[in-house]
């Protein structure tokens, strides 16, 4: 992945969350507060604008800038979580090279997951971002030897599966946890946007 591809990834995420904003908001309406779609649309639109006005030299720069923008534009739970994730991913990448390979990106994605879990204290099964992000990173790492395209595809598929599996979960973190057992039967909005992010990565790398 080079700087141009990293940019394309964020542009693609922005397009995806914009297109799916209503869907994400609907999901959040069922077990949350109906703002997830509009939050991410605002955040990634701002990230794309921020990148346009900047001249990042490395993939890490692109992702740190994205994360910083998300933190300062999104708010809610998703802003700090995704913002911190992208910042951690960016910071974990080599600072001295303008391209990164699949193994490096895999390790960085893992650092992002760790940052999300450190900040939000969610574990797998809590019906959160982690339930899509965790399987995606694992699949990415496993397929890293086959190259970026294959790894990204595998991650996206694993994220999709993790996302779908959240439907049956009883939420223990975030707003959905207030619903207790009534959270069961609804797919988690955050896990869904995580899938969109990995799907975008697969799309731009294929």
């Amino acid at each position, binding site marked *: 992945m080079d700087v141009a591809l990293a940019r394309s990834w964020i542009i693609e995420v922005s397009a995806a969350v914009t297109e799916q904003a209503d869907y994400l908001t609907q999901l959040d309406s069922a*077990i949350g*507060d109906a703002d997830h779609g*509009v939050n991410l649309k605002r955040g990634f639109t701002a990230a794309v604008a921020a990148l346009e006005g900047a001249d990042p030299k490395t993939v890490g720069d692109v992702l740190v800038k994205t994360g910083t923008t998300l933190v300062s534009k*999104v708010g809610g739970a998703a802003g700090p979580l995704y913002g911190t994730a992208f910042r951690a991913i960016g910071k974990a990448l080599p600072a001295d090279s303008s391209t990164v390979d699949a193994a490096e990106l895999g390790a960085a994605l893992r650092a992002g997951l760790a940052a999300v879990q450190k900040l*939000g204290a969610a574990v797998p099964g809590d019906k959160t971002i982690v339930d899509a992000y965790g399987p995606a990173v694992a699949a990415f790492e496993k397929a890293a030897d086959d190259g970026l395209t294959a790894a990204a595809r595998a991650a996206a598929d694993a994220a999709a599966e993790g996302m779908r599996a959240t439907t049956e979960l009883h939420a223990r973190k*975030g707003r959905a946890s*207030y*619903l207790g057992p009534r959270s069961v039967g609804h797919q988690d909005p955050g896990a869904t946007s995580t899938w969109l992010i990995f799907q975008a990565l697969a799309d731009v790398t294929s």
Partner: protein
Amino acid sequence: MKKFINDPAAVVREALAGVAAAHPDLRVDIEQQIVVRADAPVAGKVGVLSGGGSGHEPLHGGFVGLGMLDAAVPGEVFTSPVPDQILAATQAVNAGAGVVHIVKNYTGDVMNFQMAAELAGDEGIEVQTVLVDDDVAVEDSTWTAGRRGTGATVIVEKVAGALAETGASAAAVAAAGSRVNEQSASFAVALTACTTPAAGKPGFELPDDEIEVGVGIHGEPGRRREKLRPAREIAAMTVEAILGAKPLSAGSEAIVLVNGLGGTPLIELYLLYGEVAALLDKAGVRVARNLVGNYVTSLDMAGMSVTVCRADPEILRLWDAPVRTPALRWGV
């Protein structure tokens, strides 16, 4: 969706423009979404700041002024404010004596305020945080993100703001706020869902003869759905939940808030207050002070919440202290 708005994405900023026009004694930064007391930072005084998603008006912007908040940071509708915004407000109200953040216990609010506190700390500003989690409809267990912050926030802000006005330290102001929170419990019931401008339709569908019991203030469904019942029985269920979670010994004094969620008219809130007061009286609780009205709302939701705060003489003294804000004003 029927609302008096122009553009769902501009609601918060346009409402802030109205706040700015209506209250020349507040400084409103519409772009950054910050409402500040005109005379902030007040020399020697701890700054008291709160914020959260919009849609709960008059909370928090309506409580900015002498004797209560120095600043409020409204986020987008039902979305917590962002760290930059909170930091800017923290800087605006810091007179060197530190700043107290009053934060309702939601994952997003907690994380964003914490990030802002860290940034402020980097600049040498002492930040103390009061976490409000009074909603006893949610159990505080590993199965949840903890209890939500709702109606008690008004009492926390009033008491903390009054104490700050006396020149107390940030730690003392935060401790008083936390004490109010610990001694408070709230419970809410909704008759209808609310509609966020972004979603454009109600968050849930409630049949004509059903109510949502144990709702929050973000339009989410409650803990359970029940048949509509007379106000007397709803009041009883509410008071039971409150006293069950935070028992008050007979003879205790309390501040009681019967709060509308935005779409319920005052005549119903007074009717409910009559029921609640009678129930508390029966339980041996003396209502020393009360508020009846729309203070912590959930957009246009028809519903109500009851908050009971056990009040000691210090809390009552601070409650009674002068306050001059758009939504709460007395003694001045």
